[in-house]
């Protein structure tokens, strides 16, 4: 946990640094029409920087041998569980771009159900057909929200 706290504080400091640099580039003082574009961001970055420093100092002063500090951010077996959810999700997002939402949703849902849940093939097929069909009807027909159809969109019959 101590390491994670320190890394997170450093990231916050980096964000504050980027904000600060950008605010200085834009000008943070008083311009012809009042405060310049960088006025608000520079103060935010300064406050964020101070908070980041305070979190960093607190984490550094934590006893590295104490139980709270040594407790890992996430243990290896648990990380596996988290990645088992996160990676298929990321893959699905890539697929949205390529084959469109509906096909990707069917594929993602089916693979996840079969692989994680060990559901029977009929259940897998039913879910991965019904969900895209239902979202299509509700979104495109009822609420008029078109979803991405990717490269195959041109070949679909509507």
């Amino acid at each position: 946990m101590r390491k994670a706290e320190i890394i997170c504080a450093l990231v916050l400091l980096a964000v504050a640094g980027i904000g600060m640099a950008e605010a200085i580039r834009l000008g943070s003082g008083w311009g012809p029409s009042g405060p310049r574009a960088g006025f608000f961001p520079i103060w935010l970055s300064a406050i964020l920087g101070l908070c980041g420093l305070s979190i960093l100092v607190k984490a550094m002063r934590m006893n590295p041998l104490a139980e709270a500090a040594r407790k890992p951010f996430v243990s290896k077996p648990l990380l596996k569980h988290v990645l088992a959810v996160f990676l298929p999700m990321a893959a699905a997002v890539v697929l949205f771009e390529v084959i469109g939402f509906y096909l990707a949703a069917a594929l993602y849902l089916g693979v996840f159900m079969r692989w994680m849940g060990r559901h029977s093939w009929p259940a897998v097929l039913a879910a991965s057909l019904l969900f895209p069909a239902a979202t299509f009807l509700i979104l495109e027909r009822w609420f008029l929200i078109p979803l991405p159809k990717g490269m195959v969109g041109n070949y679909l019959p509507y």
Partner: protein
Amino acid sequence: MQGFGDLLYGFNIALSPYNLFIAAFGVLLGVIIGVIPGLGGTSGVAILLPLTFTMPTTSAIVFLSSIYWGALYGGAITSILFNIPGEPWSVALLFDGYPMAREGKAGQALALAFIPGFFAALVSIVLFTFFAPLLAGLALKFGPAETFAVLTLAFSTFTGLGGGSPAKTIASACVGFLLASVGLDIVTGRPRLTFGSITILSGFSFITASIGLFGIGEILLAAEETLEFKGIQGKIGVKDMWVTTKTMMRNPGTFITGTILGFWIGVMPGTGATPASFMSYGIAKQYSKHPEKFGTGAPQGIIASQTAAQAAGIGALLPLVTLGIPGSPTAAVILGGLYIWGLQPGPTLFIEQRDFVWGLIASMYIGNVMGVLFCLAMVPVFTAILKTPYAILTPLIILLSSIGAYAVNNTTFDVWLLLMYGVIGYVFKKLKYPLAPLVVALVLGDMTEEALRQSLILSGGSLAIFFTRPIAAGFMILTIFLFLLPAIRPLAQRVGRTFRAEEAEKAGEG
């Protein structure tokens, strides 16, 4: 009785068949969202927000607020029957709700949450109906200095009442503000923090942020523990309702304290139903004659936490329609909806959008009646949702979240952002950074910056403007007090402890 006429006018709008249908649909979806753990009211409302884009504005607000009411009721079912909070605001409920259900009194435990919760909501709506026009009248006199002062007050409540680490709370808000300032500068029109990218020139959407931080983050967190829903079967009989009503009447103190405290905390910007339910539970325990019974199935514990949560949910919309400031994270998402529908949140709504405001207020009455009826009648139906296996529920929530994020700007870029926010939400939750300040800052960022810069233009750059105008000064002093509260509190507790020790000594002497 101008207000009463307005309310009747509102009922006229809210009772139109379409709005009534929308309200019922919203409440039903809300209860389902409430029942499903890992899908909270905030991300639920955000996911469903795109559905409102094609609705008239009044129906849109009725829909979103009805989801909120439904979720406030629905979270209770999962807590009491499954010992897993369906919503963050029903965590305090499971302390006593689950033990009571395990004793075989599941129906009674559920009724104890719903019936007092319903009456708490009702009292809060009456308070709302009364206070909203008054507060809006006051807010109409606000200039930029007052607006900025109220906004800083909103953020100070996070540090003062949020209970987390102050540095982490402020850092979270600053990240939200910085994200909000990405894009074209509101005054000069210059691109800021875009680093030459055209995709982010239009800025970051709060919808994607709230779905990702709350929804996806929660799912990643839930993945660490394999969720298994082993619950108690529960059905509410007429006898349960009767017993519960009697219990409520016998504990008027718990009910009234929960309601008033909940409403007040709800009105305080930024906090909302979750801290309200914890505080109310704590107070009920502290002042109970049998505090040892709390945690073993005390009816007062259920009443205290649920009444406060419901009252806070209603209260959270009060500053939203009167000042344009959300009282809770879920209200922040609804506020974002107002901007998308092309409305200017704040006191002018009462003048320019009478249909909208009074339709909303009337629909609060209707939505809560529907919510309590649905829950009392259909608990078994809703618990059946929890039998949906994890391997189906998780991808479904993720797919619905992606649709919600995509529909914001019709770009897949937002779905990528969703993934990123999900990771941030997961890390922040593990390291105990509060997420609500980030989302609220993202929604209110432009408004805050505009108010600040306009005030400074008015005053020629002097910060004194915030302290020389009486209303602004009042808010500013309260703000400073709340920011200092985390520092003062340990000090005050120490003083209090020695004081109490002296008293005990005196009592011993006497």
